[in-house]
């Protein structure tokens, strides 16, 4: 199986995620972008698992999915807290702390 196209797809997904994290102003948009980055990781793991002919990578990807879900659950809760305290889910709204 040719690996390069899949790795490039993973890299593109990851780059898209990084771009989203850097440009999105809406906190939920940022969370979605982080999801993209996490899924690029999972794609990589699955591809390498296939390449090496063992299931370690796929097991890793399953754990990765579970970790991302747990992380996003907490992230969305924090966004709700942000909405309650700042009446906004824009990342820029939370920029009052400074020296």
């Amino acid at each position: 199986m040719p690996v390069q196209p899949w790795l490039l797809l993973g890299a593109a997904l990851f780059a898209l995620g990084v771009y989203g994290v850097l440009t999105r102003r809406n906190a939920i948009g940022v969370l979605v972008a982080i999801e993209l980055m996490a899924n690029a990781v999972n794609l990589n793991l699955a591809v390498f698992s296939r390449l090496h002919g063992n299931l370690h990578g796929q097991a890793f990807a399953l754990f990765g999915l579970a970790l991302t879900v747990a992380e996003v659950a907490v992230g969305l809760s924090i966004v709700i807290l942000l909405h309650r305290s700042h009446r906004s889910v824009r990342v820029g709204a939370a920029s009052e702390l400074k020296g």
Partner: protein
Amino acid sequence: MSGASPFDWLQTLQALAVPTLLALSAVVLLLADLVLPADPHPANTGPQPIGGRRNRGPLSFRELRSSIAGLPPPTTATAGAASVSADAPHAAVPAEQPAPTVPGSWRAGLAWIAVGQLLVTLAFRLLAPADGLAAGGVFIDDAFAAYLQVGVLAAGLLAVLGLRAHAVRHFGRRQVELYVLVLSSLCGMTLLAGARDLLLLAVAFELMGIPLYVLASYAKTETGLPHAPGTLARPQRAPAEAGLKLYLVGAVSAAVTLYGLSLLFGLTGSTLVARLADAPPSPLLALGVAFVLAGFGFKLGLAPFHFWIPDTYQGAPTPVVAFLSVAPKALGLAALVRVLADGLGARAGDWLGPLLGLAVAALVVGNVFAVPQQNLKRLMGFSGVAQMGTMLLGVAALGASLAGQAPSEAAVSGLASLLFFFAAYLPANTGVFLVLEALTGPLPAADPDTPHDRDTLASLAGLHRRSPGLALAALVCVLSLAGIPFAVGFWAKLWVMVAAWQAGFAWLVVVAAAVSVLGLFYYLRVARAMYLGQATETAPVRPGGVLGTAIALCALATAGMGLWPAPWVQWATAAARVFLGR
């Protein structure tokens, strides 16, 4: 993921005893919290910080109390919490029932269960032999892991003691969750201490990190603010911002690290860290190492990835910062060392350069930016960046030795000095934050218009008049952090620098020593504010017994380790030797 060797349950359970104990403790505490009846005291029922409770329409306190009284105990817990959290503005609390503690409250007592659980786990860790493999080498329970586990358990103990007064005062119904979160995070840390598999490393890292996101965003409720009936009382703004920043940085850094780990996995086809040594040199390897270093850089708050640190420290609850600022970072560094030394030791020449860059950047940026800070929490944040930079000197010495550029003894002293630095840094840093908590914790949630002017150096002014004991404890901790001779921080810094010097990084030691002079300056500013500053307040500060005990423990540990560093040095050296197999 051993495959070859049969799975030995007993051995695995034995090796994983400490994380298992902590996980069980967290579950027990959570169950105890669930079955305990809701405290009918209105002050003990603050609104929930994070969603999930439904708004049930306006309800007066009289109705609320009768509704609580009319329900059987187990459902009372949830129903009472739900309606109170949704509808009870603090403004409705009668004036004769001020917010602070309810001494007889069951929930406040649960903190002692957490303390007991931590003490039992700590005792077990100290008594049980540390030699075992779990699941065929995925987790190793050796002297290195045991040393780190003792450190994080002590940090957890200090965190629970430091959190208790804050929790009882501000978080009421949801105070026990704090301890559950601390225990969960500790479970992740103790796993991380011995993880030798990329998969376990990733899981333990998240288990350590996710509870911290929640802890940092644990918001008090702004009292006395008008809000429409039927809407939720507004939570304090600063913790939300602190939590969001910590979360975004944590989640992005986890994704970056995992991307790097996925590339490293791809090179070998095995998730075992040790197998990384077989990876052939390739651009993919370099890329993977770069991603892993950047991801850890974010997580550890190394410059130039440190921007979130001061904001998070400033906004999060102070006792949480006391916990957040040392143990997770030290364990993150330990995990980095595990990957770099155990897995990529033979390629040390490749990662040594970027690591040195990170160390210099952290030392310079941390020390320089700490100087103008007026807010003590921000100052401690930047100085923490500098301290992490100092710890990287130890990793650099280790790397130079592994790369064959330095004698093998440099590896041992590099790693041992790193471990000793952690032990020295832990009580001193925790102590400073806890003293600040004693000073500012009793104040109500900040006024939203001027939320951040309370943790300033000026607020420390004249502390020695208001509470000589607190000022002395803070002085001991600050002097140790500054690295004044005969304080433990001095021995730690000296040892790290000697190790780096032995490894041939004389220039790095010169840089570190030069910027440490700045550290002397800003840490002494803290001491000066406490002892020479003109107090605007004169009321004595009384931290209360539990917080006072935690502060005393921090100060005594710092002073004691400074006067008798030998046993700790030996312990750290033994742990480093075991890790390196020498």
